[in-house]
């Protein structure tokens, strides 16, 4: 009873005739559980104020909040605020990225500069950018520029550090190969440094995007330039708590979207690169 195949397929048992493989079932279960978790959270949210465990004046139910959210989305001013927040986010991110890429590349490629700037970088980096809020308010009042100072200062470091890593990560063998073939410095930068550093830059961009959003909203809340953050504070002062919570949910959703988009961008650029990036601080 010799068989010719490498593995014997036992005659199909009733279980193997089912349309879903174990793997598909597992994914389905994962999605179902995740949704159940979200529902459970919403249910808890609904019950807490309803049962009076938390003061319903300051903690509206899930349904009330989501209803308010629906109303907001029909309000033009809401979308203008979203636009203002995203504009501050975008401008801050671009400025930070450009500055960080340029400085990071220059400093990263010149060992002398790296050593010379090391202590300065390590001192400035951990400064929480929100510490600069009072200064920003003094200089620019409630304008966008004040918020940009905060946003750029924090986002800059995310990209800068990653670009430094990236520029340093050029494979020694590849570099020696390029030099032995007589490639000019500029050509080496374009053909060797840039592709190596690009995935690092994308990682830095993802981290910076998240940080920039947090600080954009924070700046609006505490500096007072127009946007979602300021809308939250105004609603809070007016005691409109459903609006407050609805806007909080919106910021969370924005955070998720930004994170998702930039993760996809990062993964695309990492597709051909095998090594793993190290995550950096906020």
């Amino acid at each position, binding site marked *: 009873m010799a068989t010719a195949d490498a593995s014997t397929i036992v005659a199909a048992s009733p279980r193997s005739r089912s349309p879903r493989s174990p793997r598909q079932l597992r994914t389905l279960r994962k999605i179902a*559980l995740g949704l159940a*978790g979200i529902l459970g959270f919403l249910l808890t949210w609904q019950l807490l104020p309803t049962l009076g465990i938390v003061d319903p004046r300051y903690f509206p139910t899930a349904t009330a909040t989501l209803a308010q959210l629906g109303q907001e989305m029909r309000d033009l001013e809401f979308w203008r605020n979203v636009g203002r927040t995203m504009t501050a986010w975008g401008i801050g991110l671009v400025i930070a990225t450009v500055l960080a890429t340029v400085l990071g590349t220059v400093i990263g490629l010149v060992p002398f500069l790296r050593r*010379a700037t090391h202590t300065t970088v390590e001192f400035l980096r951990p400064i929480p950018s929100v510490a600069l809020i009072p*200064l920003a308010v*003094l200089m620019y009042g409630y304008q966008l520029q004040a918020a940009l100072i905060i946003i750029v200062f924090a986002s800059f470091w995310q990209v800068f550090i990653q670009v430094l890593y990236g520029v340093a990560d050029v494979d020694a063998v590849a570099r020696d190969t390029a030099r032995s073939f007589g490639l000019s410095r500029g050509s080496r930068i374009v053909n060797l440094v840039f592709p190596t550093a690009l995935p690092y830059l994308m990682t830095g961009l993802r981290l910076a995007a998240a940080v920039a959003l947090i600080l954009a909203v924070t700046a609006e809340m505490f500096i007072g330039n127009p946007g979602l953050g300021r809308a939250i504070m105004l609603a809070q002062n007016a005691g409109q708590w459903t609006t407050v919570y609805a806007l909080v949910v919106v910021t969370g959703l924005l955070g998720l979207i930004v994170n998702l988009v930039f993760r996809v961008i990062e993964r695309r650029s990492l597709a051909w690169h095998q090594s793993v990036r190290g995550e950096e601080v906020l």
Partner: protein
Amino acid sequence: MTLYTSTVVTPRRRSRVWAKIGESTLYAIGLPIILLVIWGVWATIAPAKFFPSPVEIIQAFVDTWVGPAFVTDVLPSLGRLALGIILSILIGIAAGTLIGLVRWLRELLEPTFEFFRAVPPPVLIPIVAVLVGANDAMKVVVIVAGAVWPILLNTIEGVRATDAVMTETARSFALRPAERLRYLTLPAASPRIMAGVRQSLSIALILMVISEMFYSSSGLGFKIVYFQRNYLIAEMWSGILLLGLIGVLLAAVFGLVERRVLRWYHGIKEVERA
């Protein structure tokens, strides 16, 4: 079969050692001194309203913070920060370990947690302030509410992804569950957990600063805003400087702890790179 190569290492001559130390120091303080000098000269030539000279700032620093203000404002701030961080770490690791080990629990909770993590932490401050009241407890709760998520989620991920061969080894030697947790699961997850702790430290600092600036009548953040509102510019800068120093201190402490806890991890990376 020895561990060492046969290269002979000759000790450096003493004068060269001192030269090396001098060189390192020069690199370390060179740029900062240059920048400070430029700032000082600029402030003297073209004084800007909001940018006093470094000398004034240092003077204000000494006047303001070296004294009773340190005890009444700075120490409590640091205390709240430390408490918030410690609580975040404890809750994050404990809950994260449990959730990471129980698969259905993880699948149930992870999406919801990811949403919480995506909410910008400062946005929670008005909510916590109104629910808990504007007191010390509120400030600690705010820190925990924002800083727990990176640790929690990273612990879940780290605990989940234990190497299969290591797990089989533990099973083959019939290690008890407590032993597995202590000698396998948690050490294996520690690189990821430390990455989460690092993120949490930044968030905690931000939340401490903001909650004190705008929701408090004491503390370091409050003082800085007070100075700003009363146009005491040099004092304001001294406060910012102090916050910077605290940030640096926090990063340094974390660096020390991380290097110690993850010594084996860095060791492996070095060997791989060699």
